[in-house]
């Protein structure tokens, strides 16, 4: 018995000591497929540390992880409205720009700067933009007549049964309440941040009617693959970056390129920003990481993996020099979100009670099927 117990003690002590490695650790809370692995290697080598990547699937999930302190997050990359929420709840460290030599106040794209100036006060000193994008309609150009209808009517195609054959066309919507409701708000010409009761009721009615009329499928990352598959969906709302993701896959595999994206004039613009939450224990290393990710070469390297539009002027200029990306930028307006600056609106933090309401509205829509 004693020997067995001893063995156990050794195993348990061994595992404990294994977990407490000596290297410095940077806890990075990030979306999946949102950071080039080669950059991770480079950073780890340069600063002799280990990046512990904590994958996340939604902004709300990131909030929970930061909020309940399960992991000592050093750097997180949430989207705009979640940054605002974290800021409102006083969960972010104010950034010390003197620790980031690569940072210059005017280094970001002009259009992005305009957007950020209109955002919550002082957001520049809490977050550093990482990537940005818009919401658009990704469609299968082989479906006859669909392309013209989408180009002419924009968001109307999601709701207007006169435009499309409701028995044949299959529609994809994001399965998170905020984005699904955004489409209805864009169609109804409301603000994306509306909290007016009557407007939200109209949105609810619209979503219910949409679900009763059309064949609507709800999913998250599957949407883009289903449109690209060719049969499963005819068009869907996607983040512009998701479209390029599929585009690269189709091109890489040498398949016919029959998918396209259209960004209507009125749309949602989002940016994801790097923040240092107050849970951070290794703040110096976190600043090193932020600084590292502001280097133009690193940004370009990251774009090659992620495929979204970078935020700094220098990186965009570098992409325009690149043979492949200059072609992409020329062909697809959607790549550069600055093109949608006139009709684009950022999400704001609306407060928990509104989120519950949005979830409820979304739900009554999906139930109506």
């Amino acid at each position, binding site marked *: *018995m004693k020997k067995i117990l001893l063995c156990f003690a050794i*195993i348990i002590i061994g*595992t404990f000591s294994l977990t407490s490695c000596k290297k410095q650790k940077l806890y990075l809370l990030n979306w999946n497929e949102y950071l080039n692995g080669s950059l991770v290697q480079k950073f780890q080598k340069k600063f002799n540390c280990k990046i512990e990547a904590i994958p996340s699937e939604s902004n709300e999930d990131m909030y929970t992880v930061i909020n309940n302190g399960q*992991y000592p997050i050093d750097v997180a990359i949430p989207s705009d409205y979640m940054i605002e929420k974290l800021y409102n709840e006083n969960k972010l460290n104010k950034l010390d720009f003197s620790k980031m030599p690569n940072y210059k106040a005017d280094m970001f794209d002009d259009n992005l700067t305009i957007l950020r100036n209109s955002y919550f006060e002082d957001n520049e000193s809490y977050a550093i933009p990482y990537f940005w994008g818009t919401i658009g309609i990704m469609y299968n150009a082989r479906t006859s007549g669909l392309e013209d209808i989408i180009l002419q009517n924009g968001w109307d195609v999601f709701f207007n049964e006169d435009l499309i054959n409701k028995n044949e066309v299959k529609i994809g919507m994001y399965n998170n309440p905020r984005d699904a409701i955004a489409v209805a708000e864009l169609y109804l010409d409301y603000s994306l941040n509306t909290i007016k009761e009557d407007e939200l009721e109209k949105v609810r009615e619209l979503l219910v009617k949409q679900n009763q009329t059309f064949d609507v499928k709800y999913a998250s990352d599957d949407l883009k693959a289903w449109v690209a598959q060719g049969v499963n969906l005819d068009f869907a709302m996607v983040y512009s970056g998701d479209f390029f993701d599929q585009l690269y*896959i189709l091109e890489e*595999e040498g398949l016919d390129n029959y998918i396209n994206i259209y960004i209507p004039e009125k749309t949602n613009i989002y940016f994801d920003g790097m923040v240092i939450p107050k849970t951070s224990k290794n703040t110096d290393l976190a600043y090193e990481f932020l600084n590292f990710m502001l280097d133009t070469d690193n940004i370009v390297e990251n774009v090659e*993996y992620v495929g979204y539009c970078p935020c700094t002027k220098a990186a965009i200029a570098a992409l325009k020099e690149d043979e492949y990306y200059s072609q992409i930028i020329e062909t697809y307006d959607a790549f550069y979100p600055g093109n949608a600056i006139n009709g684009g609106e950022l999400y704001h933090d609306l407060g928990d009670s509104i989120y519950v309401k949005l979830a409820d509205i979304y739900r009554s829509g999906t139930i109506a099927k």
Partner: protein
Amino acid sequence: MITIAIIILFIYLVKKKASLVKDKTITKINTKVWPKIFKIICIGIAIILIYMPIVVILLQSINGSKNNGIFTEFSLKWYGGLISPDTFLTGNDIQAANDLQKAIGNTFLITILSTLISTILGILFALGINALPKKQRQKMILLNNVPIVNADIVTAITLMIVFMMVFSVFDWQLGFVSVLISHVFFSIPYVVLSVLPKLSEIDDNLYDAAVDLGCSPIKAIFKAILPAIKSGIIMGMLLAFTMSIDDFTITFFNGGRLLPNVSMIVYLRKGKALSPSVYAYNTILTFGILFVLLGYNIYIYMKGKKKKTKKQLGGK
């Protein structure tokens, strides 16, 4: 195709065995056609339902495209990506495959460790429970059943609560330890349950006799008790392994983000970062082992037949 092959093999084996044993009821069944058809339909439906998704995964694993809805060409590159991503894959696929390799490593590390630990602990606990008086024993079995019957999500949350309270006191982070403990936690009951019936079958005096004959207590357990409950232990290990290798919910809530296993990767990575090599991994895990086991069984069967014929020859 493979489903059909399996069905045929299965039915063949069933029939072969059945025809070997000349039992009254069996001959009765064989004389009628309808029961036979009913039999085939039932087993067919079950096998199709159970094996259909696995066959789809097999097809996806030999597909050249990353979009698993489009079949472009036959390709084994995802299998190659499991072994050496750098030589068989290109571009961003390499990173995804590397991450998958790590996840597979994590899965097996956790699964094997937790299976071993929970088997040892489970045997000891089962010995303890078996020695209790009847009333207490039934109460312990009731308690033992809690993690089996309990919803995964509730188990996950309750474990998370404990870990967060204890770990915050000592300033530890969720991670390897918490994942391992939670896996051991939900594996032990299966081992206990499969060992207990075997323990109750063996003679109470077996252990005492061994000790009287000069064995040390540990030796007595190893020499007298363990051989008698071997089949229960194997069953328990198999179940513990099965539960642990496939777990998602409990890992997710208890520190699995720092130690993602295959299920976590599948759940969290829906886009390009999920390497199709995962289909290859899954196919190897199921069909590989399936064919090894079938082969082994056929081998044993043939061997048994040979022996029989030899004996018959010898008899003559």
